[in-house]
């Protein structure tokens, strides 16, 4: 008899989703799908709002990576103003973005994924959480807490608060950096670097233990995409897009993110609110690509900071071409944390970092603009059209998790095929199916925008919880 296994909800990720696994009559996995079941709809919500409100509104999409939206949105607004923002403002935005990436990676690695790594994929699910990690490996738990706090403190020292700061504005940032705050951040960097390096050393000792997961966790050929600077180095704030193939050969380079529609198409699936972008010249679904830490380390020529470059060289030695196993997103995340800490230090030591000239002012000079930056989970793009009064007429957001959707689905299928046996289903098997999704660190609150395709049910409830009205579609 055919059987369907449903994992609902998928745990230790940001947002709401489920996984369905279809077994055939012999109990073998026939198909597996990752469904994103929440809907946000920010692109419609913002229509009619002044474009200057966009950074603050879109930052509310997410409590984990509000800074990413703040920056991509502000860059889009810069494009509408057609201004070149002051260098100091660029550097300060970069520091903020790096701090955001560092704290988000710490959340993903230490709080969400380390329970699998420390306690094992088959351990008791009741204890497989950050508190179980605290019990089993105090150093690791402490390092996670300290690193996340470091990233959040940097954000607060720059932008006034840890979550949903409003400091990044069209044309720059709203206030300069105080010398005392710069010094506080610089003082904390050596400790952060020590903790990241210690975690990297520990992580590298686990490879043998997770040999099967390394081999099967979304380990397949695909394209990889991300921003690089003009030296081919890791670039989180600006730069041009590069795509490489599974052998790390450059497929496309120097692509202007503002022209994304020339090379990225967004497919829509009937069973998910998450869109499925693909590289247009290779068609759907062959144009599947991955973004985020693994992709970024696969596309670059070097990181551009001393310690991260040493780790990156070791990372690249593991394979002849690109790292294809998504399990190594964890490894890449740690290397990027190291890069972020070093790069923050570099930027804070630039001579003009305390300059008070941090904002350019202008009226809108264009009616359409695109802004792109690297968010923790990959390339983030905002695209707005405004009318002559500066009101948003149309918006499109392409989110990192969306870029990864095709690969996540393929990964779920690969892991399910390898680990799930219909005749004797065990929790550890299903945990691995969830864990492959966790390697991508999806942020579903950010990325659900495929309104109009998935079956939708809306209920209007009275204060007693009784249904007053109901609309179903699809």
């Amino acid at each position, binding site marked *: 008899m055919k059987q369907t296994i449903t994992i609902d909800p998928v745990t230790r990720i940001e947002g709401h989703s489920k996984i369905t696994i279809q077994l055939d009559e012999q109990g073998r996995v026939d198909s597996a799908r990752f469904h994103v079941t929440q809907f946000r709809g920010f692109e419609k919500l913002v229509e009619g709002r002044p474009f200057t409100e966009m950074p603050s509104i879109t930052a509310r999409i997410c409590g984990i990576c509000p800074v990413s939206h703040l920056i991509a949105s502000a860059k889009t607004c810069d494009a509408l103003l057609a201004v070149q923002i002051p260098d100091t403002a660029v550097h300060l935005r970069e520091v903020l973005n790096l701090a955001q990436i560092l704290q988000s990676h710490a959340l993903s690695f230490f*709080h969400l994924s380390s329970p699998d790594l420390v306690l094992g994929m088959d351990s008791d699910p009741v*204890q497989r959480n*950050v*508190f179980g990690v*605290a*019990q089993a490996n105090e150093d690791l738990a*402490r390092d996670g*807490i300290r690193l996340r*706090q470091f990233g959040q403190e940097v954000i607060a020292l720059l932008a006034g608060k840890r979550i949903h700061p409003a400091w990044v504005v069209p044309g720059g940032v709203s206030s300069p950096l105080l010398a005392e705050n710069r010094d506080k951040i610089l003082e904390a960097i050596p400790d952060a670097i020590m903790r990241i390096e210690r975690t990297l050393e520990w992580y590298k000792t686990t490879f043998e233990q997770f040999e099967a997961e390394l081999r099967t966790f979304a380990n397949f050929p695909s394209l990889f995409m991300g921003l690089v600077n003009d030296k081919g180095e890791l670039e989180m704030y600006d730069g041009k897009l590069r795509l490489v193939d599974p052998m790390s050969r450059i497929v496309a380079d120097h692509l202007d993110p503002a022209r994304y529609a020339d090379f990225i198409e967004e497919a829509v699936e009937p069973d998910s609110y998450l869109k499925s972008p693909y590289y247009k010249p290779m068609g759907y679904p062959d144009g599947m690509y991955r973004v985020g830490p693994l992709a970024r380390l696969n596309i670059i020529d070097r990181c551009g900071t001393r310690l991260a470059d040493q780790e990156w060289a070791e990372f690249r030695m593991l394979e002849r071409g690109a790292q294809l196993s998504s399990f190594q997103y964890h490894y890449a995340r740690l290397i990027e944390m190291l890069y972020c800490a070093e790069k923050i230090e570099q930027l804070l030591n630039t001579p003009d970092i305390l300059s008070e000239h941090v904002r350019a002012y202008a009226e809108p000079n264009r009616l359409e603009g695109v802004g792109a930056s690297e968010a923790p989970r990959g390339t983030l793009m905002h695209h707005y059209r405004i009318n002559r009064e500066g009101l948003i007429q149309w918006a499109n957001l392409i989110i990192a998790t969306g870029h990864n959707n095709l690969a996540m689905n393929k990964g779920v299928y690969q892991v399910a095929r390898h680990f799930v046996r219909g005749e004797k289903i065990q929790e550890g098997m299903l945990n691995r199916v969830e864990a492959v999704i966790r390697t991508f660190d999806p942020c579903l609150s950010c990325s659900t925008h495929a309104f109009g395709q998935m079956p939708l049910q809306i209920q209007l409830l009275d204060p007693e919880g009784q249904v007053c009205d109901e609309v179903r579609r699809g």
Partner: protein
Amino acid sequence: MSGTLIIAIGNPLRGDDGVAWHVVDELFHRDLPEGTCLLTVHQLLPELAQDASEATRIIFIDASMEHQPGETAVIELTQSPLDLSRGTHELDPQGLLALTTRLFDRSPTAYLVAIGGKSFGFSESLSPVVEAAVPVAADLVVGLTQAIPGIVSPTPAG
């Protein structure tokens, strides 16, 4: 940090659930000992263990469904073992204290100032009865910041 850490917990967009944030607003007009740190959070998170480990005394302020609307109570928090079955979104003051002790080997004196809530729906304002309790709760917090650990007289929960 070596003084008192005050952590106000709640969602200010959910009516009385955000009463602790209103107490913090009130505390800005009160005399607090030097070194007192005020934090407003929607929920407790593991990274607060670092802040907790650096304080000598922690005062949590939170809305309560176990007290009558507008009723206030001071509860002295005792150490409990780390509960491994909790998720990161379910961390309560005792859980944070247990995590702090486990990771940082520190056990600050801790109290909870609980304020009974009435309405937890979408609203940025408090019920009148809960609003009236805000200065009372602020008085309790000020008293705790000045108390010598061990001689405060907490009221029982419930």
